């Protein structure tokens, strides 16, 4: 009899139920899209923040103290130790390899063009390398310096004389994309002239605007340092630092083995630099705090903001659903009165209505979850220009939420109705 009543209530009162299910689905879709977004926003914003530049600097461990003033090195012995270009591909084999978005090596050479002093920076632009595991990876300045505004083309790694000139230097010397320029460099074999073909002028908004970027191989040839690089910039996705990360930064050995495991397996910038130092012996991998710290801070803020937004959206969805359920139950006061007049116990009425709301909640919840996935993709595309990754854990949360809220909404109304006197209700107040 119970099942029959339940079935009837869904088949006969379909129109009324539809509104409830649609409302629940709408609320649930709101909840699931917001949850999806707030779970994924860390990753998304982290990628946006990559415009702050690399957050890890890898240098050879040196005995001398660098005398760097405003980007100019005054120690003649500095810059004489190198990293092997070949070993860099192993950066892609550390535990957090997937979090290393890009990296590029540098080798610098002071030069003069026109009457301007400048620095030639040898680097990778869009280099394909093969990791020890045999995987092919493309990395270099094109991905690392994504925020550069380039007028013209990026230089190519395979060429020996292409160059990209910084905007400030280009302005001073009148160099334009497509020009052929000559630079004077002091090499071990004496002062020589090098012809460069300018493929593009870049505006980085930083000190790099006074430099000239050329393929790494060219500087190696000029200096006779084939296969060597002086430093590597790495851009990695990281987790904001917490107490554990700060303690580990001071001394990883102070952690208990369990803490160490947790630290090592979390993408803290400290854990990533530690793993880089493990895999490349003789290097010092530094977290560039200026970038790493700001990223962590901003990321934390945005995640918190998103969490609060989600809570607000959930609140409004919950309220919408529960007020609708209340209305729907109140509408059926006559039916309840009749049931009671026919001898139904209070609890029997409650069970019937609870079952109805649970079913509506589940159907609405599943529909809403699917709709929410669509919404999240639309929002992801609109805001970040890429879809959001689908998190399965959202489904149970959304289902519990929609069933719970539907129940809550109808229960308060049912309680009111169960206490009504059948005669009064049926008479019509």
């Amino acid at each position, binding site marked *: 009899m119970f099942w029959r009543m339940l079935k009837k209530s869904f088949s006969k009162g379909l129109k009324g139920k539809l*509104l409830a299910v649609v*409302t629940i689905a*709408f*609320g649930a879709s*709101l909840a699931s899209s*917001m949850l999806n*977004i707030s779970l994924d926003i860390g990753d998304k*914003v982290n990628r*946006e923040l990559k*415009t*702050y*530049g690399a957050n890890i*600097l890898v240098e050879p461990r040196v005995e001398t*103290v*660098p*005398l*760097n*003033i*405003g980007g100019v090195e*005054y*120690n003649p012995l500095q810059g004489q130790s190198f990293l092997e270009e070949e070993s860099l591909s192993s950066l892609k084999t550390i535990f957090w390899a997937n979090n290393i978005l890009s990296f590029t090596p540098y080798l610098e050479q002071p030069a003069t063009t026109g009457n301007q002093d400048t620095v030639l920076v040898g680097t990778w632009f869009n280099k394909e390398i093969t990791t020890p595991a045999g995987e092919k990876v493309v990395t270099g300045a094109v991905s690392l310096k994504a*925020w550069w505004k380039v007028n013209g083309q990026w230089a190519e790694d395979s060429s020996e004389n292409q160059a990209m000139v910084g905007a400030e230097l280009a302005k001073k010397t009148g160099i334009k994309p497509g020009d052929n320029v000559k630079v004077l460099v002091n090499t071990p074999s004496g002062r020589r002239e090098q012809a460069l073909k300018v493929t593009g002028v870049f*505006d980085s*908004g*930083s000190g790099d605007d006074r430099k000239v970027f050329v393929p790494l191989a060219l500087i190696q040839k000029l200096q006779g340092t084939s296969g060597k690089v002086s430093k590597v910039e790495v851009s990695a996705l990281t987790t904001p630092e917490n107490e554990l990360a700060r303690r580990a930064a001071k001394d990883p050995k102070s952690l208990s083995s369990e803490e160490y495991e947790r630290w090592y397996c979390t993408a803290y910038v400290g854990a990533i630099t530690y793993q880089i130092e493990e895999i490349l012996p003789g290097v010092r991998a*530094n*977290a*560039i*705090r*200026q970038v*790493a*710290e*700001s990223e962590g*801070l*901003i990321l934390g*803020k*945005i995640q*918190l*903001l*998103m969490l*609060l*937004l989600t809570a*607000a*959206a959930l*609140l*409004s*969805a919950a*309220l*919408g659903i529960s*007020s*609708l359920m*209340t*209305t729907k139950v*109140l*509408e059926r006061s006559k039916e309840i009165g009749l049931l009671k007049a026919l001898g139904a116990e209070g609890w029997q009425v409650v069970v019937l209505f609870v079952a109805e709301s649970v079913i509506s909640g589940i159907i609405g919840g599943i529909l809403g979850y699917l709709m929410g996935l669509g919404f999240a993709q639309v*929002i992801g595309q*609109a*805001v*970040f220009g890429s879809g959001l990754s689908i998190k399965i854990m959202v489904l149970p949360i959304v289902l519990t939420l929609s069933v719970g809220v539907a129940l809550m909404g109808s229960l308060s109304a049912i309680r*009111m109705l169960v206490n009504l006197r059948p005669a009064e209700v049926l008479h019509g107040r």
Partner: protein
Amino acid sequence: MTKQAMYLRMVTAALKNRKSRVAIALLALVLGIGVISGLLSVYSDITLKMSKELRSYGANLVLVPAQQQEGSTLESAKLNRMLEQVPQEKTIGYSPYLYGIVTGNKQRFVAVGVDFSGIQKVSPYWSLDGAWPSENNQIVVGSALAEKLELKVGQKLNITAEETGKTESLQVVGMVTTGSTEDYQVFLELNKAQVLLGKEGQIHTAYLSVMGNSAELITLAETISQAEPGIKANPIQQIARSEGVILEKIRTLVYLVVIVILASTLLCVSTTMMAMVMERRREIGLRKALGATNRAIAGEFLGESALLGITGGVLGSLVGWGIAQVIGLSVFKAYITLRPSVLMAVIILSVLVAWVAVIMPVRTAANIEPALVLKGE
């Protein structure tokens, strides 16, 4: 009794007699409008708050001598005069820098004269072990350099300037880690550095952290460069640019959420209003039978919902103010400014929502056939 008074009486009575229904609709409206007004307040304040947060990145304006030859310096008096050009409320902080090569513990390294209170504001990302100097003879040492010199916090360090040959005995009170060149430098109070390096009243560069987007930064840099011909201001635009991008994304997100919440509030109020109309079919039928026009009935519903909307809007903006402060305090650790424009917009919005919600029910009410309803369906 005048017509207006009757109308008013009918409208208020309609609300009074259905307390539980009205309470549900009002609650939905108050919370929906509350969340929206809270988000709108945050939305209008977010640019300011977030760009303050984004200043954690450090300096975005570098002042250098216009004639950049090796070792050229600025007069610090000139710098102070020029800083008056920068609006006070926009300046987060600034610090002058004076560099020199010194020796100590048999190593050559770079000593930097700075303004410690300024540095803390310009570069909040510096990680300091120990304390910031409070006296003239106290210094902060880069952590990598401290390791090389085998220095600990509290120890003394004698440094000799290479150019002047002067020696000072200084006390290490803190160690700084930045992951950059600072790790190999020693920082001391500017006045002390000027005496030690023989460069009284001079500095090499100054780093400023000011609020503003990319365009404002460029304008400010130009103003400074023109006001003082000896000084060139270089904006570090890299950060300003990405700030703009990130802010835009956050604003879009908040905007989308507001729209979605608006829709859900609308739906909720609308279903409640619909239920109210359905309940009152008999009453409406009776009034129509007594000669009420469709317009009169629609007018009454609109009046009811306007009353609901205004109450909801006023209460909602109170709730919203609370929500905005919760978000402001927990995310930005600062209060969100209360804007009259947001208040007005929210109350108008609330009335609009209530009206839109009532359109469907009013249509149903207008189509009621008195005879059918009064007979009992």
